[in-house]
């Protein structure tokens, strides 16, 4: 008998995990126009299969500041908060490994070339266990 193995949608899971914690909108596709307030964008940027039942995804998180004068500090605070919450993500089927394997690097400052809005960007390693059909 061949058993089908499936994995959940890591982007959707990340959005569902983060939204109640960071208390701002968490999006995957950028809306047009962009939300005026701070928000987080979740982007799956790759990963690797560790074994038959485990994938390590690379999930990039862009923490955007708003459009006001405090946009920079909003982006920074949101970046720090997201960094902390992602590093602490541990559930049975999806988690971020502890220690230096949690992130590809620390959050870095970045500016959107079109809107000039400030962002803090980080890439987390999100491990996901198989879901049996």
């Amino acid at each position, binding site marked *: 008998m061949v058993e089908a193995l499936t994995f959940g949608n890591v982007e959707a899971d990340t959005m569902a995990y983060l939204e109640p914690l960071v208390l701002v909108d968490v999006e995957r596709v950028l809306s047009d126009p962009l939300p005026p307030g701070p928000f987080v964008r979740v982007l799956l*940027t790759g990963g690797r299969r560790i074994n038959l039942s485990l994938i390590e995804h690379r999930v990039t998180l862009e923490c955007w500041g708003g459009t006001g004068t405090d946009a920079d500090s909003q982006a920074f605070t949101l970046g720090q908060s997201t960094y902390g919450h992602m590093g602490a993500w541990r559930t049975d089927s999806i988690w971020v490994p502890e220690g230096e394997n949690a992130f590809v690097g620390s959050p870095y400052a970045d500016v959107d*070339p079109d809107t000039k809005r400030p962002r803090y960007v980080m890439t987390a390693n999100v491990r996901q266990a198989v879901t049996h059909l």
Partner: protein
Amino acid sequence: MATQIKLYSKGFAEIRTFPKVMKMLDDIAEATARRAGEGFEAEPAKPTGGRVRGRAAVVARTTDAMRAQAKSRALERAIGGA
């Protein structure tokens, strides 16, 4: 009798910067630059200061490459293999 081990710490730095290791880093950087697309270039591996490690880099050389990084995270995708 207890055995004492004395680590030759300079040797670790030498291992981390062996020509074979530096070549491996160059290969990874070049493959990453290729995956990231036009305008991305690999910089050859060099020993770092401090704990002395080999480090290669991929940089966005053109405006288009910088934009691809800022808008669609070309480097993260290239590292992640996407």
